[in-house]
């Protein structure tokens, strides 16, 4: 098993860990962390696939896409954090409403 394939499998593992945490936790900050971990997993799979042609000179197009992805992820995380803080000031705690306990 080449190193690239190994890292690609690790990337899918990260994606699954992140997805599980995203669905299981209800606190919004944990959901944001989970989405970032999922993004990291996806980038890892992309970069592992980029070394397929020649490990010494990897394909630069996936690299550029990953750099773009990292910057977009930080922008989305920043916006998500501000949304979470706004929800906290409105609702009192950073957990999405359950739907069952409607107290309107």
């Amino acid at each position, binding site marked *: 098993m080449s190193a690239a394939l190994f890292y690609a499998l690790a990337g899918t593992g990260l994606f699954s860990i992140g997805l599980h945490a995203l669905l*299981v936790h209800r606190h919004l*900050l944990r959901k944001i962390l989970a989405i970032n*971990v999922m993004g990291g997993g996806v*980038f890892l*799979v992309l970069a592992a696939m980029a070394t*397929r*042609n*020649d490990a010494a000179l990897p394909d*630069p197009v996936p690299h550029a896409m990953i750099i773009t992805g990292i910057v977009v992820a930080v922008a989305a995380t920043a916006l998500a954090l501000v949304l979470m803080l706004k929800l906290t000031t409105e609702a009192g705690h950073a*957990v999405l409403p359950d739907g069952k306990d409607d107290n309107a």
Partner: protein
Amino acid sequence: MISGMLDIVLALALMGLAWGALASADLFKAIVLFIAFGLVMALVWVRLNAPDIALAEAAIGAGLTGALLLAAYAKLHAASPDTDVDNASRVRGIPFILISVLTLLLTAALGYAVWTLPSDGAGLGNDVAANLDRSGVSNPVTAVLLNFRGYDTLLEVMVLLLALLGAWSLGLSSPRREAAPGLVLDTLSRLLVPLLILVAAYLLWVGAHALGGAFQAGAVLAAAGVLMLLAGWRLPAALAALPLRLVLVAGPATFLLLAVITLLLEGRLLQFYPQWAGRLILFIETTATISIGATLIALFLGAPPNREDRQ
């Protein structure tokens, strides 16, 4: 053999840190483990022969995201001190088992899909290498980012600006200014900020032919800005209205303007003449670096600078 073991250790550490960050009961510990996760990812990028990504991940993914998360955690703690409700608010019972089973199935399917991918694919590396001398720079990643796939980068800087607009429109107030930062923080910021600006300029310049580029340089500028903000500096009120907005918009606007000009001149979006490409790329990168740095600093602050917390 040794390098194989290193890869195994790094991948296991990566997954262990991710698991620890997401399963930890204490939210602060989760954030710290996430920052460590980002740094180990930077090592993994180096192992995958992607040092540009390693720079970007260390600066943006681990550093800036970590700073954003810690700032948000601090505000969360101040707003609602019962952050320890987070461990109780986990899905339990039958839905938990269902989610776990489905995630395991998805993992197996994805792992199988990745395993059965063909082990050698030409990709676009040869095409990039063949056209590199017409792109105006000699770093292939910069060439792809700013010339061959310049459209993606244009949209990316727009996305950054859009995130800032979204954050500003939510009406939160920025954290209260640190009135007495203390001698150590003050001296540290005075020593480091000029050095950080120098390193950012170096990364911007050298990105044309070696590792570096606009995003890494913008992230280093953002680090300088965050350090100044933590040491109690705030933008003077006279500069906080129009000049700040001009700086924020400079990068996306130049890029968009060049896109429109190339569309009108040559009929294709962002198609540069080879003899002009190098200079145009440097020009776009310079304005983009300043804008990216300013946008990331503003995102850290969370609110426009003249809307400070009154209490």
